[in-house]
Each structure stands twice: as structure tokens, then as C-alpha cells.
């Protein structure tokens, strides 16, 4: 589907663009023959997106190895993007680097209507949140038992492992979660590292990065095959999501879904909520620790709220304003997704410009979240932006976009916020943390489309005295 000769397709459609009235968006300068701005994208993507805004204004076109990507920036242009009908701007075809990760026929095969209905599987609905909060609190306590009195953790490894357990227990099932071992989060890490933008040339080039990705995926299929064969043989136990799917038969008696497909579903369910939440947890701790007074404020708030012995699972669903502001500010400065893309299904118009069908349009949370006209002193970590009266996230709902906005706003946003509040309530009540490295040494690795903290990213901890 998506990777079917994009180069030819875009050339044909751009030749007919002038027939549709609006003018073509300005093109970004520079770029190599054939590869265009692809190497710049792999080297320093956020700088590239800012260059589009500074050079071309609120609409400008990049060239990623023949794929024309029109970047929209600024509140008005981003609102046009977020409000567009799904039938016009299609998510499915915009992310060719994900196809080999998920596997064929898994995630984006549904129609927009089917995807709208995904919410009906209920697991993200408000009614389920109380149960999820209990599960997350239990998982956090479980991982804390391993911490002991004092020591050091790698923030990427620690939060990757924890969020793998919390997400799988909440979204798939508690028995399934018990099957997971640290090997799973390492395999996920390899998959995430396999999202090199060189996939815009071809996601199956014979490169080490893609070979590792494919090996990781094959290993995951192997691991899950063992799990499901064991589960199929056992007596008793609960039938969870995947057991049900694997038991479905075609009319001729053959299984409806293969383990390979179920593995793809597992990857896709985990992908949206794993590296995103885990990265945000790590950045929240880093920012709270490297900004003077920030962690003290949150700790005092948490201590006061839980002084009456109330349950974390209860409070995580309610207000913890200082902690929430710290999480939001980390999300603003370090959005887990730095670019959101759609493929234009029929001509998209904005302010006298036309983007013809076949091209990609995009917005960049990394740029948007730091636009000084919406967020004064944008590079500063300032949790008071979210205080009553300022509420910059609400006043600029089309610019404060770590979760996207509009029709496609992340359906897991409320779940993610609750999860982060639950995790930090327990961690900060019981432990003190400090950074092990110089504060500026904590950086994201932007060489892949999936953003990851660069290792080492270590922190020391000590149990608080009661």
C-alpha cells in the first residue's frame, strides 16, 4: 500500500497541481539530488522543520527522497490540518517506516469509520480508568520492590520496562502481562530503533538497521508463539483478548488469525503507548530534577495530598496540579512524536495554496510547542504556564499539541496522564532522586522517526525516611 512507488505518484500529481486553482506551496531551499532533505531529516529533524517555518512561512514543502512533505506551522494552518476530514487527510499511508514493524495487514487496514469505532473496544473509556489506575499502582509498587534502599537506574530502561508491564496489563490482560520478561522491552527497543527515515527511500533496504528490526520482530513472533501454545494447552485461567482472537476459526476450520498477525496487533497496541509514555516519564523526572525548586514543589504537593492515606489509584484520576504541570511542561518541551503526518487523498487548500492529492502534509509538535507567540519564553521549563488564569495548553489548543489535536487527538491521552500521575505519586512518596550526570547531558536521539532518550541517562535514588 503506502510504499508502492511513491516517487512516481508524487511526480504525476504535482504536474497536475496547477489545474486546481491555488498556488503551490513554496519549496524549501537546499536539498540533494534524489535524496532532497532526507539526510538533514535524519541528522537534525527539528532544525529542518524550523528552517521550513523561518524560510517559507506557515506552509512550505520539503523533499524526502521524492516524497513531497508540506509542513504546516502556526495556529491557523495547524487548525486546518487537525480539522480536516479523515477521508481527505489519511493517516494510513503516511508512515511507511511503520509497515515492517507492525507487519502486513495489521494496523492501518481499517476504514476511517472502523478506526473511529476503535474506542468501542472500551479499554480506554472513562469507566475503565479506575481499574487501570489500580493496575498501574500495583505494577509501580512491584518494580519498586526491586529498587531496595538506594542505587542507580538508567531512566530509559527503567521506564521502558515499567510501561511495558502497565500497558500490557491494562490493555491486553493481566495473565498476558505475567508472560512478559525484560527481553520484551529490549526487543521493543530494537523495533523502535528500526524506524529510520531512510524508509522513505524504501523500508526494506538491505541495511543493518532494518535487518535488526526484522530480527527483533521475528524474535517477538517466536516468543509469543511459545506463550500462546502454552496458553492453549493449559486448563483454567482467564480467556484474554489474544486467546479469543486466536480461537476464532474460518468457516473451513482454519484459524482466522495467525500468531504473526496477533504479534502485529500486540506491537501496534503497545507502540502508541509505550515509548511515548516511557520517554515522558523519564523527561518529567529529568526536568523536575534539573530545574531548581521543581521537584521540591511536586514532592510537597504529593506528600500533602496523600497525608490522609488515600489510595494512589483514587487520586491519579483527580487533580495533582503541580505534578500535572510538570508532566505537561515536559511533554511540551520534549514531545514524543516530533512530526504528525497525513497523506492527502483529495486536494487540500489553505490560505490560497493547494496541496494536491498524493503528497504528504505534516505538522510538527516539536516546532509548535515552542512557538514564542503562543508560549512566551518557549525554551524555559515553566510549570506555571498551566496555572489558573494562564492555561496556555487550553488557550492554544491547536498549538499545544504533544497529543495532536482535533479529530485525531491521541485517544490514549487521558490514560497516559493518569498513568504518569499514578507512577510519580508512588515513586516520589517513597524515593528521592538525583541526576547522576551533568544536567545538559540528557538528550533525545533524533536519528530515528521514533524519538528515544540517548543513553546513558542515569539517575540515583534513595529510599525516603518515613
Amino acid at each position: 500500500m503506502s510504499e508502492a512507488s511513491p516517487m512516481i505518484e508524487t511526480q504525476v500529481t504535482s504536474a497536475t497541481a496547477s489545474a486546481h486553482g491555488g498556488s503551490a506551496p513554496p519549496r524549501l531551499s537546499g536539498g540533494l539530488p534524489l535524496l532532497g532533505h532526507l539526510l538533514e531529516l535524519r541528522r537534525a529533524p527539528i532544525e529542518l522543520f524550523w528552517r521550513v517555518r523561518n524560510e517559507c512561512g506557515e506552509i512550505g514543502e520539503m523533499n524526502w527522497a521524492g516524497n513531497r512533505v508540506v509542513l504546516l506551522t502556526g495556529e491557523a494552518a495547524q487548525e486546518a490540518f487537525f480539522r480536516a476530514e479523515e477521508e481527505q487527510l489519511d493517516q494510513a499511508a503516511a508512515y511507511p517506516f511503520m509497515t515492517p514493524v507492525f507487519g502486513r495487514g495489521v494496523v492501518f487496514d481499517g476504514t476511517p469509520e472502523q478506526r473511529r469505532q476503535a474506542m468501542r473496544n472500551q479499554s480506554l473509556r472513562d469507566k475503565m480508568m479506575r481499574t487501570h489506575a489500580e493496575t498501574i499502582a500495583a505494577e509501580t509498587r512491584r518494580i519498586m520492590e526491586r529498587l531496595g534502599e538506594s542505587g542507580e537506574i538508567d531512566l530509559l530502561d527503567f521506564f521502558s520496562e515499567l510501561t511495558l508491564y502497565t500497558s500490557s496489563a491494562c490493555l491486553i490482560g493481566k495473565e498476558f502481562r505475567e508472560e512478559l520478561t525484560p527481553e520484551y522491552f529490549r526487543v521493543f527497543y530494537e523495533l523502535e530503533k528500526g524506524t529510520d527515515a531512510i524508509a522513505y527511500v524504501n523500508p526494506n533496504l538491505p541495511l543493518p538497521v532494518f535487518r535488526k528490526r526484522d530480527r527483533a520482530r521475528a524474535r517477538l513472533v517466536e516468543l509469543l508463539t511459545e506463550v500462546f501454545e502454552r496458553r492453549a494447552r493449559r486448563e483454567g485461567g482467564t480467556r484474554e483478548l489474544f486467546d479469543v482472537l486466536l480461537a476464532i476459526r474460518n468457516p473451513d476450520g482454519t484459524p482466522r488469525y495467525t500468531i504473526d498477525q496477533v504479534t502485529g496487533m500486540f506491537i501496534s497496541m503497545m507502540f502508541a503507548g509505550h515509548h511515548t509514555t516511557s520517554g515522558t516519564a523519564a523527561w518529567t523526572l529529568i526536568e523536575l530534577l534539573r530545574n531548581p525548586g521543581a521537584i521540591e514543589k511536586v514532592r510537597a504537593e504529593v506528600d500533602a495530598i496523600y497525608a490522609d492515606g488515600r489510595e494512589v489509584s483514587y487520586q491519579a484520576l483527580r487533580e495533582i496540579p503541580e505534578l500535572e504541570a510538570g508532566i505537561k511542561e515536559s511533554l511540551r518541551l520534549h514531545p514524543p512524536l516530533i512530526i504528525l503526518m497525513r497523506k492527502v487523498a483529495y486536494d487540500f487548500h489553505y490560505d490560497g495554496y493547494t496541496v494536491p492529492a498524493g503528497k504528504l502534509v505534516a505538522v510538527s509538535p516539536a516546532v509548535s510547542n515552542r512557538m514564542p507567540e503562543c508560549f512566551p519564553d518557549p525554551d524555559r521549563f515553566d510549570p506555571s504556564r498551566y496555572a489558573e488564569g494562564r492555561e496556555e495548553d487550553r488557550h492554544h489548543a491547536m498549538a499545544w499539541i504533544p497529543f495532536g489535536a482535533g479529530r485525531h487527538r491521541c485517544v490514549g491521552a487521558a490514560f497516559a496522564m493518569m498513568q504518569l500521575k499514578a507512577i510519580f505519586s508512588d515513586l516520589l512518596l517513597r524515593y528521592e532522586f538525583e541526576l547522576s550526570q551533568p544536567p545538559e547531558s540528557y538528550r533525545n536521539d533524533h536519528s530515528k522517526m521514533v524519538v528515544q532518550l540517548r543513553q546513558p541517562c542515569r539517575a540515583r535514588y534513595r529510599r525516603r525516611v518515613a
Partner: protein
Amino acid sequence: MRIAVDLDLCQGHGVCCSEAPALFELDRDKVRVLDDSPPADQHAAARLAAKYCPTLAIKIQEEN
């Protein structure tokens, strides 16, 4: 007080139905407003529904 829901933004999370069950109901995958000019004793619940809506789809217009 007037309640308006932007159905473009509603994703059917159902937070409003928990906060203000007398005013909101989930109709398949979108919300339905049961009473868009609620009585005074429902105003606090309506404000909470708007505040906690995960997609900021609920707008409340207070009357003077």
C-alpha cells in the same frame, strides 16, 4: 448556562457521563447532550465535565 459540544472533537471517552450523568449520555461513539441549559444544581457538574473532557470538546457559556 448553555452547553455546546463540538462533535468534531468528541471521541466518546465518556468522562462527561461520569462527571454529569444527568446531562450527558454516550450514544454509540459520540456524546449526546441530554439537557443543554441545565438547572442551577447541575452547573457544578457541567463545569467539571467541560474541565475534564479529554478532547476539550465541551464549551460552557455562563449566563449573567
